[in-house]
Structure formats: structure tokens, C-alpha cells
């Protein structure tokens, strides 16, 4: 995993200085995964009496893996996954019994289960476009309930209440023996599935899903197509669960509609919560806990519910990241003891270290940022007759202006003057906005938020819309989403061009963080940062999208003037470098006068004054309405 070919020979790159691991093909988790796979594979004959239980662990682990995507990453709390398990199982049974004449065998069952459940997933995901959290749980719960009724009534497919037997277990014509050979085959299937899910999580899809979970509004504003991503999460997750359904029926050798009830759906998601929903390992650990523990201690079966319930309550109260969270915390403590350092020092949120400055020049001259240099000015924004009305309040009342490309413009005005609402109208966050907006000749009006962003409109948020538990580095990478040119299928198999693209993105993100003086905090969760740094992360994410015009909504609010000025200097330096215009809402008049060539003053939804900072500050109306004497 050496990485030398693309860095400049003369000095260490930002990534090297910060110690950011280079994205590659093999990770530590892969080695761990293969190790446990090999161990189970070899020791399997020793556990002959448990083969059905182990088969179930694998089924639950696969479903858990699929839920890591849809729930752990994308944050879609779904109670509908029993549907996919049922669909996969009955498809498999029908094909294995050759009901359709498509030929039998796993080589037919698995692709068909994947394809059908992918489409089914896209459909089940539809409610997620309109509702989230509770209402999504309700909607998917209703789908699972109706789905089971459908299974009962669709007798050609499921044989109704009497159920279907799994049929022959073959792969390319070879008979697979029940017991150990079958479990070994399942193990291989799960290993491949997990590798693929892991690749998706590491790539742009996983990152955008995490962005969507932590802030949908912000995800839209960097150009992520949130609607499609949500549905896609259900599709991929459904497909994998369908595959698990194939394994389910072969493991049980028989299944009826009663197997796929709403309770199963709940148990599936609980399994992942118990294990730890932020990691694939959590899916495995949860599956072992839920499916193997009761098997191992027979007396315990009577108290299954008490153990599951107790574990859930205990973990939710004391380790929200599940058993894996507990293990991770334990390992950190042991590591600390061995290294004889205080625990606090090696916790991730205190991992930052001083980073030596680059030896040659500023970050803007570094390799990938230098490539962004653009002497052509962009960001010619026109706003014509913008109106936003909330009930009886005209928050923005017929505002028109034009901003020249590559200029820094300030917007000032008292609270409630309609500044943020104006931004929201331009970016599409205000749903009932009227008016015509164009950016470099591209018509923005009536386009979805993410399209406007892709057209070159970048923004930050007044009240910090950051991605909570996500690292600072990933915020820059999320901003770079549009630069990830690889397809999602290539991503799933981590083809060489995916890795190349990821490396470039990491490099560029690191350099951007370096420029914004955030590099030493790259590995921090953004929630753990002080307010001033969070502000900078917000701006960095906006800059990462390489916008034509960047709308900054009170970037300096709450910061000391010196710190604010320093940050604004960096922003404007970067903006000039890439030829991007900046419009900034700010209450700090000193700062506005300092950095803005032109100032627009708003009052009660209208433009009160417009001109150079100098002329505006001396305008009698402005002094009366806003500045005071």
C-alpha cells in the first residue's frame, strides 16, 4: 500500500503531513474479515449439530449488512425488510422446484432474487420521499403487514398457508450437500456480499448516504440527489435481503408465509441495533447474539425475549453503538493500558496533532488545488423580482439585482429583513419562492435544490447544517461528490479507476482543509469541534463543491472580528483562485466594509440601498433603518 507515484517529490503532501491514510484496495477490516471467515470455514465440521443455527446467523448477518446501508448509513428506519426476505425465499423455492422452467440452481435463484428485490426495494422506498423517521417506520410497517397478507393469498407463488419446500440445492448442476458444504457456500456468498457492501460504504454512495442521514438539507445543497439516493438505498438493501431470503429457505428447507411476519422485520432491525449499526461487523455480532446465544444455552430459550429486550435497553442506555461500540471502547482502553497513556489521549476526538506547515508555498500552490486555478471569472447571478410570502408576511418582496462574475458582494440588513429568505429563494430551500434566477446563463428557477447546486450555486447555513458524527475530512469529500466520476457498479467492485478517483478526491480535500486551516482536525467528528471551527468546516464544504458563486450566510456570526476576518480572507483568496463569486450576509459591518466591493442593504423584504460599501454606509436611509447614528 505504498503511495508515491502522484505526490510531488519536493515536499510532503497535505495528506502525508496529516497522516491521512490513502484509499486503497485492502483495509484492516478486510484482513479481519477474511481471518474470521477462514476460521469458521475450517472449524465448521466441529459444530455439526449447530448447522441450522449457523445458517440463520449468516442469513441475519446478510440482512444486517443490507441494513447497515439503508439504516446505518442512509438513516432510513425501516420495518419492512421481511418482505424482501419472503420474496427472495419464495422466488428461490419456485425456481428450485422449476415452476417457471428457467432452469434450477443457485446460479438462477440468486440473480433473479437480487433483481426482483432490487425493484421491489425501489418501490418500498417510495414513501421515504414523502416522510421520514416515525412516519417512514409506520409506512414500511404497513407494507410489511400488507406484504404478508399478499404472500398468504398469492397461492401460486407461496402455496398459501401450507408453504413451500426449498427444492434441490444445486450450483451449476452440482448437488450441494446439506450441512457443512451448504454453510461453507453461504459463507463464501456472505463474504463477497460484505466486500461489496463495504466498497459501497467507502465510496461516494456510502458517503452521500451518511450525509443524507445527518442532514438532508445540507446534502441537497452540495448537489446530492437525495430522493434518488434514498430509493437506491432501499433498492440495494432490498436486493441483498432478497439474497438472504434464498439462503433462508435453503437453510430451513421449507417456508410458509407465516415465517415472514412483521415481528421478523422488527427482529431484523433490532439485530443490527444490538450489534452496532455503524459497522458491518455489527451485523455479524448482532446476528450471533440474536440467533446463536439462545441455541448455545438451551435453558435460555425460555427467556429469549427477556435477553433481547434487556440487551436492547441496556445497550441503548449505555452503548448506543451496540455491542461493537462496547468492543471498540474496550479495545481502546486496552490499547491505552498497553501503551500506558491516559485513555483520553487516544480517543478519536482528541487525535488531532500539530501539523507542520508545507515547506514550499501556500496550499493553493499544491498539486490538485493549483489545477483548479481559473482566471476566467464565473458567477454571474441575476435575480429578478424575487418574492417569498409566509402567510401574511412578505419576507422577500420584489427583489431584483445582478451580481457580476467573480465579485464579492455583501448583504446587510436588520434581523427579519429577508436576507436568509432571499438566499433560500435563490438556492431553492424556500419552497414557495417566486421570481427568476439565473446563474451564468443557466435558469435556476423551479429547479430542485441539488440541480441548482450542480449548476454552480454553493451555500453555507446560518445555523450550521453540518453532518454531526461525520469526520471533517468527509465534509470536504461530501462537497466533492460531483467530482466522483465513477459509476455505482464500478464502486461496488472497487475497480482501479474508483480508487484513483478516490485518491485524487482525498488529496484535494486535504489541501482544501489545509488552506482553511482545518487539516489538523481532519479526523475529528464535526460535533466535537468548537463553534469557530465548525463555521470553517461549513465554508470548506461549500468551497469543495467548486461553486461559481458561493452564498455565505453569516459565516462570521459569533466569531471574534479578528478570527472572522482571517477566515474571510482565506475564503476570498480561494474564491479568487477558482474564479468564483461570493455573496455574504453579515451583521459585522466592519467586516463587510473590509471585504465587499459592493453592498446591498435590505429592509422589510426590499432593497433599501445598493452600491459600494463607502456610499452605502453614508446613505441616510441605511443609517436610519440599520446602522444607527
Amino acid at each position, binding site marked *: 500500500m505504498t503511495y508515491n507515484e502522484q505526490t510531488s517529490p519536493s515536499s510532503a503532501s497535505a495528506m502525508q503531513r496529516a497522516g491521512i491514510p490513502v484509499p486503497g484496495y485492502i483495509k484492516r477490516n478486510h484482513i479481519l474479515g477474511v481471518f474470521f471467515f477462514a476460521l469458521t470455514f475450517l472449524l465448521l465440521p466441529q459444530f455439526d449439530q449447530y448447522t441450522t443455527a449457523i445458517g440463520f446467523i449468516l442469513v441475519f448477518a446478510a440482512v444486517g449488512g443490507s441494513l447497515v446501508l439503508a439504516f446505518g448509513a442512509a438513516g432510513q*428506519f425501516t420495518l419492512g425488510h421481511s418482505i424482501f426476505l419472503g420474496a427472495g425465499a419464495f422466488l428461490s423455492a419456485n425456481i428450485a422446484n422449476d415452476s417457471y422452467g428457467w432452469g434450477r440452481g443457485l446460479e438462477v435463484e440468486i440473480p433473479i432474487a437480487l433483481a426482483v428485490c432490487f425493484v421491489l426495494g425501489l418501490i418500498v422506498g417510495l*414513501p421515504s420521499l*414523502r*416522510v421520514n*423517521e*416515525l*412516519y417512514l*417506520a*409506520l*409506512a414500511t*410497517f*404497513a*407494507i410489511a*403487514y*400488507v406484504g404478508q*397478507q*399478499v404472500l398468504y*393469498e398469492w397461492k401460486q407463488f407461496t402455496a398459501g398457508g401450507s408453504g413451500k419446500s426449498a427444492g434441490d440445492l444445486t450450483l451449476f448442476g452440482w448437488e450441494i450437500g446439506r450441512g457443512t458444504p451448504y454453510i461453507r457456500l453461504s459463507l463464501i456468498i456472505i463474504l463477497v456480499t460484505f466486500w461489496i457492501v463495504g466498497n459501497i460504504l467507502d465510496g461516494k454512495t456510502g458517503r452521500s448516504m451518511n450525509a443524507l442521514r445527518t442532514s438532508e*438539507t445540507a446534502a441537497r445543497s452540495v448537489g446530492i440527489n437525495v430522493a434518488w439516493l434514498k430509493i437506491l438505498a432501499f433498492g440495494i438493501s432490498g436486493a441483498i435481503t432478497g439474497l438472504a431470503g434464498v439462503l433462508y429457505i435453503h437453510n430451513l428447507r421449507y417456508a410458509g408465509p407465516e415465517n415472514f411476519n*412483521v415481528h421478523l422485520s*422488527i427482529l431484523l432491525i*433490532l439485530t443490527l*441495533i444490538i450489534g452496532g449499526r455503524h459497522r458491518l461487523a455489527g451485523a455479524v455480532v448482532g446476528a450471533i447474539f440474536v440467533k446463536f446465544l439462545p441455541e448455545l444455552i438451551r435453558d435460555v430459550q*425460555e*427467556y*429469549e*425475549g*427477556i435477553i*433481547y*429486550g*434487556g*440487551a*436492547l*435497553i441496556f445497550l*441503548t*442506555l449505555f452503548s*448506543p453503538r451496540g455491542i461493537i461500540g462496547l468492543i471498540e471502547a474496550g479495545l481502546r482502553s486496552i490499547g491505552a493500558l498497553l501503551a500506558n497513556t491516559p485513555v483520553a489521549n487516544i480517543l478519536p476526538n482528541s487525535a488531532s496533532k500539530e501539523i507542520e506547515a508545507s515547506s514550499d508555498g501556500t496550499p493553493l500552490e499544491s498539486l490538485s488545488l493549483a489545477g483548479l486555478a481559473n482566471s476566467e471569472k464565473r458567477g454571474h447571478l441575476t435575480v429578478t423580482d424575487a418574492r417569498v410570502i409566509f402567510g401574511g408576511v412578505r419576507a422577500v418582496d420584489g427583489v431584483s439585482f445582478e451580481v457580476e462574475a467573480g465579485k464579492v458582494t455583501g448583504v446587510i440588513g436588520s434581523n427579519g429583513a429577508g436576507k*436568509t429568505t432571499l438566499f*433560500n429563494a435563490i438556492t431553492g*430551500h*424556500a*419552497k414557495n419562492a417566486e421570481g427568476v434566477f439565473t446563474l451564468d446563463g443557466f435558469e435556476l428557477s423551479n429547479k430542485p435544490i441539488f440541480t441548482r447546486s450542480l449548476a454552480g450555486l454553493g451555500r453555507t*447555513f*446560518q*445555523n450550521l*447544517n453540518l453532518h454531526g458524527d461525520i469526520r471533517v475530512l468527509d465534509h470536504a469529500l461530501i462537497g466533492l461528490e460531483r467530482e466522483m466520476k465513477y459509476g455505482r457498479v464500478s464502486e461496488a467492485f472497487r475497480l482501479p479507476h474508483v480508487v484513483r478517483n478516490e485518491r485524487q478526491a482525498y488529496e484535494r480535500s486535504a489541501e482544501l482543509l489545509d488552506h482553511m486551516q482545518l487539516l489538523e482536525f481532519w479526523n475529528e467528528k464535526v460535533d466535537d469541534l468548537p463553534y469557530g471551527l465548525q463555521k470553517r468546516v461549513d465554508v470548506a464544504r461549500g468551497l469543495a463543491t467548486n461553486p461559481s458563486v458561493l452564498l455565505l450566510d453569516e459565516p462570521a456570526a459569533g466569531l471574534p472580528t479578528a478570527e472572522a476576518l482571517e477566515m474571510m480572507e482565506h475564503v476570498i483568496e480561494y474564491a479568487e483562485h477558482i474564479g468564483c463569486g461570493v455573496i455574504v450576509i453579515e451583521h459585522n459591518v466592519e467586516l463587510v466594509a473590509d471585504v465587499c466591493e459592493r453592498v446591498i442593504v435590505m429592509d422589510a423584504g426590499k432593497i433599501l440601498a445598493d452600491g459600494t460599501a463607502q456610499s452605502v454606509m453614508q446613505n441616510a436611509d441605511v443609517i436610519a433603518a440599520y446602522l444607527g447614528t
Partner: protein
Amino acid sequence: MTEFIQLLWSGILNGMLYALIGLSLVLIFKTARILNFAAGTMAGFTGWFAWWWATKQGIPFLLAILVAIVMVAVATLLIERLTIRPLINENFLSIVTITLGLEFLIANLSINFFGGRAESLRIPGDIQFKNFEIGGVRFNWWHVVILISTFIILAIVGYIVNRTELGLAMRAFAEDKDAARLMGIKESTVSQWTWTLSVTVGGLAGILFAPVLFLQQDYMNIPFIKGFVAAILGGFTSLSGGVLGGLLLGELEAFAVKYAPRQMAAALPVIIVFFILLIRPRGLFTRAKAHERV
């Protein structure tokens, strides 16, 4: 006509069950934004508990009900204190997970404790087996008791929510948590009494319908799902919406059994509700929420 009224009556009866469970869910959701997945199991536990006092311990019927309700209410105070309160400011998911955990735990406990065999809750005078007729429509005496009791329960809950100081605090929390806190309303008090009220309403439903549904280990599971659907139909934040949703669902079911194809009868009401929700995701009886603040 007689048949129509008979169907209407059976719809009202089922509707009352869904309405009470729906009300129990909405009460908690409205004030605390929590979905209580354990509501059905807790209601079932109360029903079993009343049976246990009346049959196994041989204390008088009404006293058994009272003891069961009071003991479950006290247990709820404890559960709320130990599991819900520490997470009161956490995200929606944490507490939902807790209630799922409670569901598993209580379901298991009630099997171990009450045996899990089907039993029946005997009512003094066996009035659940006695019917009377008006104009060809048959009415069961116990069903009449259910109807009257439900009205009393609804009236009491309505009184508490709309006329008492506790109710005012609950409504304040439902409207704006932070503002309510700033006004000096104690969140813990509101939370604990909301839980107790909600579980009591559910528990009364569990007892009232025990003679109708028969006591089985999870006899309140299906009513829980239906009550859930009723609450969704009502928009999940409106108390009267939940009750109306329950009645509507009850009638839908009663008439689906009669007029829909046999295979569809079980799923049809839920399918209808699902489509209603696609059109009106926030339920039939609520106004749209103000849009998200950016």
C-alpha cells in the same frame, strides 16, 4: 337494514378497541414524540394481570381490575424513570429502540408469569354470554359495557388533557418543547404522567376486550397494529383524530368482511389506509406542518 345496523354496531365495537389503543399511542407521541412499540404488550399484560388477580387470587372482579391498573401504573412510573427519562433529549430512534426492547421483555415476562395458555376472563353474572334484541339487531350486554366504559374513558382523558393543569402542560410540550421548558414546566413530570395515562388507557382496553378476544399470550398484538393504523389515520398528533381513525378503521373492517372478496377482507383496510397515507402522509385529521427551517 337490520344487517346494516348489525355491521355498524360491530364496527363501532372494534373501532372502540382501535380508538383506545390509538389514543394510548397518540398521547405519548403528541407530547414526547415517542412511538411506544410496547403499547400493545403492556395493554395485554394489564389484561392478564387482572385475570390473574380475579381468577388465581380470587379477589372480586372490580377490585382485581383496580389492583391491576394501579400496579401497572406504578410499574410504568418506574419504567419511565429508569429507561425513558435518561434518553428524553436523545433522538427519536433511541427511545423507539427502548420501547421495542420493552416489548420483547414484557411479552416474555407475561408468558413466564401467566403461563401462555389461552384463558378467559370471567365476568360476574357471565354477561359476556347474554344478549338482548332491539328490532332484530342483537346486542351483547358486555359490548354495551364496553361502549359505556369507552365513553367514560374518553371523557376523562378529554377532561385531563383540556381542563387540568397537567393537560395544559402536556399540550404546551406538544406545541413547543423548548418554550414549555422556559415557562418552567417540568419535563420529567409531564413525561411520567403522560406515560402513566397512556398505559392506563391501553390497559383498560386490554381488560375491556379480554372477554371478547380471549386471553392468549399475545392477544393485543393485532389490536396494537390496528390501533397504530388508526393513529396514523388520525395524523398521530390529534387525540380526537386517533379516536375517529379507530372508529373509521373499525367500520371499514366490518363492512370489508361483508362486501369485499374473502381473500381481500383481512388486508383491505390496511391497503386503503396505506393509499390514504400516500396522498396525505400526515393523516386525515391534521393540518400540514410548517416547513422546515433552514
